[in-house]
């Protein structure tokens, strides 16, 4: 296909050609960035929590007024929860992944250190915490039964010289000892020594505070229901609803004068936590589709205009022996050239927009992979859009050349 005649035609329609190029460039730039944002959000929404999400249910109650023996009531509660048919394990934890509030502590290698080494989200849990949550131990061991303490008593006593056993997530362990030998070492939370007895694969922080989603630690300290602890029950996925109902009833039986603050499947909690991100994904996708449709319609409109305007020339070419295929390919090539120019400009603009977003909203750099994806998308779109007008052009009979107008 000879490109020269196409170029010389386009030179005579500079304004219209420039408008198509501009539209394709803008669309390409916006769609590349929007797709990148979508992928960021999808990655966030599907972030692993490290726990057995589809086997867990959450119940939380709180007392009314001062609770006199919350610790023993918590123990009774856990005993009745474990007795529910279908429950394989139950515990009380101080916080949960993908839930509003979070508590964290700084940890350091030496007790008197200028700046802490890292900050870890602190999960306090009672017996069977590891088994209930389903976090995966990759080194060391679980807490021993005689290592669990009541949180309130430990906190009141202040720092002790004896170390508290602690389990790190892989991310926290790597922060404390980049060589991977954190297991068995002693670190400090303020002046309180911590002895690392195990490392788990992952346990996400509750809300990514301080841009930390992976650095957590687990401590064998029992909270009470009155200190905001969450009762967690593990069961098989199909028995969750039934277990949840039984758990609420059991707690009600133990003490009817309490408020039920939460009762839900953990999966619902995840869905709820990421609802804004999901809404954003929906919005970005909708805008992308709308942009592509508008651009396609714009191409159809301008191409139709050109076909109509040039119908006499097309007739002459046909009369001089050009085949329908050649006419069809002429318009397809023309569109390809315009789209290519638009895509090149669009990529530059996409890169510039990404830089601006990085500065304004601390977004990461867009991987270069998005540029060819955007390019292919717009080439295909252009070809689809131009096909109808181009076919109409190919259908122009040679006889048009002989007519007056």
């Amino acid at each position, binding site marked *: 296909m000879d490109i020269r005649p196409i170029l010389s035609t386009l030179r005579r329609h500079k*304004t219209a050609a420039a*408008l198509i190029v501009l539209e394709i460039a803008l669309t390409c730039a916006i769609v590349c960035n929007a797709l990148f944002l979508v992928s960021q959000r999808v990655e966030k929404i599907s972030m692993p929590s490290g726990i057995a999400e589809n086997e867990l249910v959450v119940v939380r109650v709180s007392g009314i007024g001062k609770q006199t023996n919350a610790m023993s009531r918590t123990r009774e509660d856990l005993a009745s929860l474990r007795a529910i048919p279908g429950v394989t394990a139950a515990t009380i934890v101080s916080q949960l992944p993908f839930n509003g509030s979070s508590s964290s502590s700084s940890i350091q290698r030496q007790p008197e250190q200028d700046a*802490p080494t890292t900050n870890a989200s602190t999960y306090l849990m009672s017996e069977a915490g590891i088994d209930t949550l389903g976090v995966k131990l990759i080194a060391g061991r679980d807490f021993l039964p005689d290592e669990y303490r009541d949180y309130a008593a430990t906190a009141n006593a*202040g720092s002790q010289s004896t170390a508290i056993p602690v389990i790190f997530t892989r991310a926290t362990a790597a922060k404390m000892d980049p060589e991977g030998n954190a297991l068995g070492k002693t670190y400090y939370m303020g002046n309180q020594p911590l002895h690392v007895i195990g490392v788990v694969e992952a346990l996400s922080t509750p809300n990514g505070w301080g841009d930390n989603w992976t650095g957590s630690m687990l401590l064998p300290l029992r909270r009470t229901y009155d200190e905001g602890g969450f009762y967690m029950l593990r069961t098989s996925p199909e028995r969750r609803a039934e277990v949840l109902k039984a758990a609420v009833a059991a707690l009600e039986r133990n003490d009817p004068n309490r408020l039920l603050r939460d009762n839900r499947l953990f999966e619902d909690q995840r869905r709820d936590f990421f609802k*804004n991100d999901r809404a*954003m994904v929906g919005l970005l996708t909708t805008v992308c589709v709308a942009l592509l449709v508008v*651009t396609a319609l714009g191409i159809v409109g301008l191409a139709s*205009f050109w076909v109509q*305007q040039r119908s006499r020339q097309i007739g002459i070419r046909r009369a001089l022996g050009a085949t329908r295929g050649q006419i069809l390919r002429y318009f397809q090539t023309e569109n390809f050239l315009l789209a290519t120019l638009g895509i090149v400009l669009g990529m530059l603009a996409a890169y510039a927009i990404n830089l601006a977003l990085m500065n304004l909203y601390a977004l990461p750099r867009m991987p270069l992979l998005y540029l060819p994806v955007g390019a292919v998308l717009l080439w295909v779109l252009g070809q689809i859009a131009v096909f109808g007008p181009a076919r109409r052009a190919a259908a122009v009979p040679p006889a048009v050349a002989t007519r007056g107008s």
Partner: protein
Amino acid sequence: MFAYYARLAVRSFRRNKVLTALMVLAIALGIGASMTTLTVFHVLSGDPIPDKSDRLFYVQLDSDGRSGYVPGEEPTEQLTRFDGEALLREARAERQALMTGGGGTIEPDGSTLQPFSIDARWTSADFFPMFNVPMQYGRPWTRADDEARARVVVISKVLNEKLYQGANSVGKDLRMDGQSFRIVGVMQDWRPEPHFYDLTVGTFGTREDLLLPVSTSFAMNLGNNGDMNCFGEPPKGENSHSLNAPCRWLQYWAEMDPGKADDYRRYLENYSSQQREAGRFERPPNVRLRSVMEWLDVNGAVPNDVRLQLWLALGFLGVCLVNTVGLLLAKFLRRSGEIGVRRALGASRGQIFLQCLVEAGAVGVVGGVLGIGLALLGLFAVRQQPVSYAKLAHLDGSMLLLAIGLTLLASIAAGFLPAWRAMQVTPAIQLKSQ
């Protein structure tokens, strides 16, 4: 003349129904998307207390330990109880309020209502005049109540309706968390958005149903809701809410003439120096004093997602406009023959230009009206979203004006270039080629 152009435009629309519909739809979508996001942005970046937002200042002190000190770094957001109480006692501003978010469980007496939990605020007496809190019944508590650690509360209209069916409940006793409090006042509906005076409990859609003196909350050890940031351990036998605990969990606002802000800043620096000499502070004085809008700005009260959506919508409008320019150009130039005849019959270039602009303007106006309709639909969709600011998304008068302005601007911008090109059609060539 104008009416004639309008008639010509209508005739032209009839001839190319699909193309016209396409242009109108593109403009409508662009305007609809932009107006939806602009409205959300406008609502969220609004001034929550326009009468005196320049007279209210948020106080920050740097009470952190020496470790990790970076000169000039932003001090932490909240104050320790010790500093908050000291500033409140010294009372160097016209008015000042110390506060924190709280919560409790209300036990309705003798009724069929079950106990329920509420969000609350512990604060000091000046809170009410400082933030222009409107009262329905009774009055706020006084500074004397603060000093006496009185067990008094002011409740919201919503809570008053729930507990007392909206009747005047001043003087009644309310039970919360097993304790009894006397109601001294009932607020009218008062819910500043954003929740500027304490962003740690949520920026939008936060409602507090009960206020009680912060001094009382200290005395009764009622704790707090919101952020708590400790930089050391509380003294033995005390907790993180104790007077000398190295924990920051309180907000402090001061009201003063904006001209006195520099004096107040110096006062805060002096206070920091004194605390440093006394050994409490380990860092050089590092204070901040920000007015309401500065404080909201620093904290990024408008969510980044909303800003992104705004840019996205404006970009979309841009593409829609370019699209319309292209289609209008095609449409006008397709009629080159007709324009040539009109020119030959004596129409001036200006008249051709005006005629084309009327046609483009008509497309823009119809598209704009549809677009405002789409924006209303879009805002309705935003209100159904599970976000905290959803309920605020309403089109107000100023945004409607902006929408009309944007529409006119868009349609003239879209019509200008095609009309310009159309008026340059040379009659001779067109007549020859016929």
